[in-house]
């Protein structure tokens, strides 16, 4: 009963590995530039916290696990004793006694195993869950920063794979303790049988494992690289199938099949190399173990022949030698898990420690009902903005036209306070944004991006997401103004239809209409809309444009767009060019007088 698979392994084998292992592309780990995790947790701290948070579970699982492994170690001892005192002597009473002892032993070890494994795995799961929540909260934090330079897939992978690995230290620690307990019990048993034999076993196993490790290390490293290349085939296949429509669109099936066959054959060759390495490794370990057991058996036989130990002792010693490989492997496994967890903890710590993109100001802007919503930019310098002065009076509807997407992007960053400008300042009702708490600020100012994400929820819930609970009228008005009500009418369950992830079940134009409805329904004092209708057909766009002014009456609205339909509805249009304000005036005026404007807007 030596190297019984730990539940962690078996479960991973059966379930975790198959299902939980999150199938994500191996995003290249993006290097953090100019970011020093200051003040946040370090990898070591993340690891320690994961264990400390599960203190009780870790301690109780360790105690039970130690009992379990201790009992496991006693099984060969009891077998030896039974042979010695019952089989060899023919005493039925003795046999019954030992069978009873064995029964009690199995009962205890089975109960302890089950309970300890459940607690230990629970500790791991709970620790991983906590880490996931912590990571989620950090990434979604209003001050931002954790998502900079990291792809969503990479962050998701950290929150699933890395969190699981770090959580698993809480599972592995009890196993490690149990392995040490088993080693101790076996060592005592062996030394009690015979000091020389015990020493031979105890001193022999570490070099044996070391030798096995030495043999396997280069092989494992090689096989790891080859396994990765083998996995490549699966990636290529998935990619080709995901792009099937595009492939079919250009009639490239034959080319794709040929490409896949090459990849698959390369991958097969790599997999075979890896398999050979692994087979060689396994064979070597098998042979080494066999030689070791033979040595113990023969040494024990010598001792038994000269009468220093009994036959039963010999049997027990051989059994123990076999058994001991298990706890030693368990220790090595725990060690490897710890090493992996350390790397994962570092990645988690980096995310948790990433500096906020904007420093949270303390002040709270006046609530939407009292604040006027006067937004003003003074000499703002940020990326493509090279000294921009803009004034959006309270209640105005202003268009901003720029043909440079970078300028639009940076303007949005500054207005949403996703980044603070490098120079100049943005003011809301006379208060610099840097003095305002970003989350409170967003109660007043809403910046809606043109590619805004919808979430996996019903259309209505998506639209209601930013609205006050009592604002049913605002939601209805927003649905109508954005013509999202027409989108809803086409869906099987109307506005209650659940949208697919990212709203992919809708067409681009439908998505934009729902996103616009959501922005309008939020009914903020200041609303900044970026290209809200690029994917919407012309007829619908002009209807939206006509309703926009009414639904935003009395509130400040900024439209960053080149759509003439929308710009025609504005009070005033500002043209950004070369990073500064190049022209300003009414749309009609600019259309007739400004050639560049006409090109930008009407082409």
């Amino acid at each position: 009963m030596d190297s019984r698979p730990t539940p962690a392994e078996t479960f991973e084998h059966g379930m975790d590995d198959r299902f939980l292992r999150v199938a994500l592309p191996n995003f290249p780990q993006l290097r953090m530039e100019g970011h020093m995790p200051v003040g946040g947790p370090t990898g070591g701290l993340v690891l320690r916290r994961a264990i400390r948070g599960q203190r009780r579970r870790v301690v109780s699982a360790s105690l039970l696990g130690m009992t379990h492994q201790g009992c496991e170690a006693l099984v060969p001892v009891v077998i030896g004793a039974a042979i010695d005192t019952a089989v060899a002597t023919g005493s039925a009473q003795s046999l019954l006694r030992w069978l009873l002892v064995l029964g009690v032993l199995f009962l205890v070890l089975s109960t302890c195993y089950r309970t300890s494994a459940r607690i230990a795995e629970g500790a791991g799961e709970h620790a991983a869950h906590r880490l996931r929540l912590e990571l989620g909260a950090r990434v979604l934090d209003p001050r931002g920063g954790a998502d900079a330079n990291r792809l969503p897939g990479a962050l998701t992978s950290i929150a699933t794979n890395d969190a699981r690995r770090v959580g698993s230290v809480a599972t592995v620690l009890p196993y490690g303790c149990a392995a040490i307990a088993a080693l101790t019990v076996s060592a005592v048993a062996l030394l009690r049988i015979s000091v020389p034999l015990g020493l031979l076993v105890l001193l022999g196993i570490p070099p044996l494992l070391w030798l096995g490790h030495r043999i396997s290390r280069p092989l494992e490293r090689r096989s790891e690289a080859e396994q990765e290349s083998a996995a490549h085939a699966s990636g290529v296949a998935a990619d080709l199938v995901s792009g099937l429509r595009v492939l079919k669109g250009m009639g490239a099936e034959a080319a794709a099949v040929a490409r896949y066959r090459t990849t698959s054959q390369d991958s097969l060759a790599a997999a075979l190399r890896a398999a050979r390495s692994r087979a060689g490794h396994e064979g070597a370990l098998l042979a080494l173990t066999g030689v070791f057991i033979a040595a113990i058996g023969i040494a024990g036989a010598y001792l038994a022949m000269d009468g220093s130990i009994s036959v039963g002792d010999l049997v027990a010693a051989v059994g123990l030698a076999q058994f001991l490989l298990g706890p030693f492997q368990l220790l090595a496994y725990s060690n490897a898990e710890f090493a992996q967890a350390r790397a994962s903890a570092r990645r988690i710590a980096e995310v948790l420690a990433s500096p906020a993109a904007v420093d949270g100001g303390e002040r709270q802007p006046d609530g939407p009902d009292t604040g006027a919503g006067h937004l003003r930019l003074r000499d703002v310098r940020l990326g493509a903005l090279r000294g921009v002065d803009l004034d959006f009076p309270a209640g105005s509807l202003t268009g901003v036209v720029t043909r440079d997407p970078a300028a639009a992007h940076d303007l949005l960053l500054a207005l949403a306070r996703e980044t603070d400008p490098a120079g100049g300042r943005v003011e809301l009702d006379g208060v610099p944004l840097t003095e305002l708490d970003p989350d409170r600020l967003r109660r007043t100012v809403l910046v809606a991006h043109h590619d805004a994400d919808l979430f996996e929820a019903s259309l209505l819930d998506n639209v209601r997401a930013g609205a006050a609970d009592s604002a049913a009228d605002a939601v209805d008005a927003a649905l109508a103004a954005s013509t999202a009500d027409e989108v809803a009418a086409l869906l099987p369950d109307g506005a209650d239809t659940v949208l697919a992830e990212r709203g992919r079940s809708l067409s681009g134009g439908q998505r934009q209409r729902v996103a616009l409805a959501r922005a309008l329904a939020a009914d903020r004092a200041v609303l900044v809309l970026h290209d809200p209708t690029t994917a919407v057909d012309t007829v619908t766009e002009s209807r939206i444009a006509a309703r926009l002014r009414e639904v935003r009456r009395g509130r400040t609205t900024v439209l960053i767009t080149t759509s003439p339909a929308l710009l025609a509805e504005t009070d005033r249009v500002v043209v950004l060019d070369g990073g500064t304000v190049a022209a300003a005036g009414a749309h009609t005026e600019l259309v007739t007088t400004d050639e560049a404007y006409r090109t930008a807007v009407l082409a």
Partner: protein
Amino acid sequence: MTAAHEDRTGPAEPGTERDRDMSGTSTHDGTDRALLPTAGGAESRAALRTILHGHRLLAAGAVLVLVVGTGIGLLTAPLLGHVVDLVVDQEGPRALTLPLVLLVAVALARGAAGAAGSALVARLGETVLAAVRERFIERALRLPLERVEAAGSGDLVSRVTSDVAVIAKSVRQALPEFTRSALTILLTLVGLAVLDWRFLLAALLAVPVQVLSVRWYLRRAAPVYAEHRVATGALQHQLLDSIGGVRTVRAFRLNERHTGLLADRSGAARDVALRGLHIVTGFFSRLNLAEYIGLAAMLGTGFLLVRNGSVSIGTATAAALYFHSLFNPVNAALFLLDDAQSAGASFARLIGVANLPAEPAPRSGSVPADGSVKVTGLGHAYADGPPVLSGVDLDVHSGERVALVGASGAGKTTLAKVVAGVHTPASGTISLGGVDVRELGPEGVRRAVTLISQEVHVFAGPLAEDLRLARPEASDAELRGALDAVGALEWAEALPDGLATVVGEGGHRLTVAQAQHLALARLVLADPPVAILDEATADAGSAGARVLEEAAARALVGRTGLLVAHRLPQAAAADRVVVLDGGRVVETGTHDELVAAGGRYAALWSAWSNSRRSADAPAPASAEPTPVPPADRTQAGAADDHLSADAVIRPAAGGPGRR
């Protein structure tokens, strides 16, 4: 089972697709998915037999080597038993030399045979796996698109990722281990019978408990595993949803709600995982009982047999050791039954697709004479839905550029897809270059027509390889030429490694506009007589859309173009405008004709040009009407459009030039 069993994840297994597949059968639009077929047991077995037949020597060799290796390994216990007998019989230490040599020889031979056996089993498994996945992809990529869409793209993706992964894992880990364990068990039982048949009977006393435990386990584990798969899928989904939309989450102050959703999903995944662990630990705990029953029976039998003199103490020891050494193989083999079950299910899903009939072959060898498209009386409906197209007639001359205009739901996209051969029309005929599409066959249609849809996909790998999918034999110069033709060469060469830059999933991320640029470059390379562009520019934002329209115009040079127009200037620039409404063609003619006719198109146009002038604006100062005449636009666009690709691709570029 050691830590080395932990598997590496493939580089690109889009979990989201897979999860979507797991989440149920009904799609967002409420229609039930017609999942792709799964092979039945007989069909799977037949397929496996066919594949194995090609490797029967390898298979026989692998089994033989493993049997020999395991058999040798089983000599250890009797040798140790013999050593015990030597001790009991008070033989001198010199008698131990032979057993020592034999034990070492057994260990070495067992190691060597084990290595060879594992390598052979892996070779067999991997070869079969490669054959299956290649056959699968070959058939999957040639499935009618309509069939794939009916099943949802997630179905194919999940088969090619998770099902292949399940089989690969079984082949790499479960298969060798299972084979070894099964052989060990079998030969150990034989060994016990050789020692004394009554030992075998004693060992079999454990079997009823084992059978019950396995049945208990399989019955409970399967649903929990399925539930766990769904729960972790949902968690990952939620993470991607919240993290991917983090800007929106912040803008709308949804932090708390999304943190709450994450907590719910994460907690649910944790709870299901714990339930799964409960079952696994319960299973092993039950097997402990079998171990005890068997071990006690062995000791009891040994006791009785030694007492009546049938066997020596050494034999009884060997029997007990035999049984003790069975614990692990039994645990492994029983546990792996579950793996074998899933691998079988996955195999059936792969074979189900691999055995689908191929596309119909072209009826004749005719090829389209030119790029003309003739559509007559075309009708189409999705599933049992209302007709989307009815009685559509359309005659496009070779080289003509026709814009399809209409509100959402007018049938523009459906018409584009039907002409491109994605959907088979319910009624009516289509001919390309004078040849009926049914004669051309799907392959012929695809050679004649390239469809660029709103959906963009950048194939993972070097940019040049992506382009070569459209024309495998293209030289580097041709690739550059195609990129240049659509104005994409500049940014492509500015990528970190130029055209060798790895793009797509896991590589350099291209913007939506760049990806669409790439699609147009592929169109130039594929060089079909007919190109259909469907809203290919809508997602790029307003400034990007214009650059792409420009690129599209250049990519269409020299071929027939059918474009689904979103922005009216696109329509105005076309040779002819076709207005669709409710699945019917309601107007057709040049831009000027339709504007003059005062119909629907004229109304659209006036809405557009009004919005451009603003409702009550005075007439523009310049005498030239605000909308630039179509002909001028194209030429002006090609010659001196200042909106170079830089404006979209390299945002830091300066402002527009002034005329």
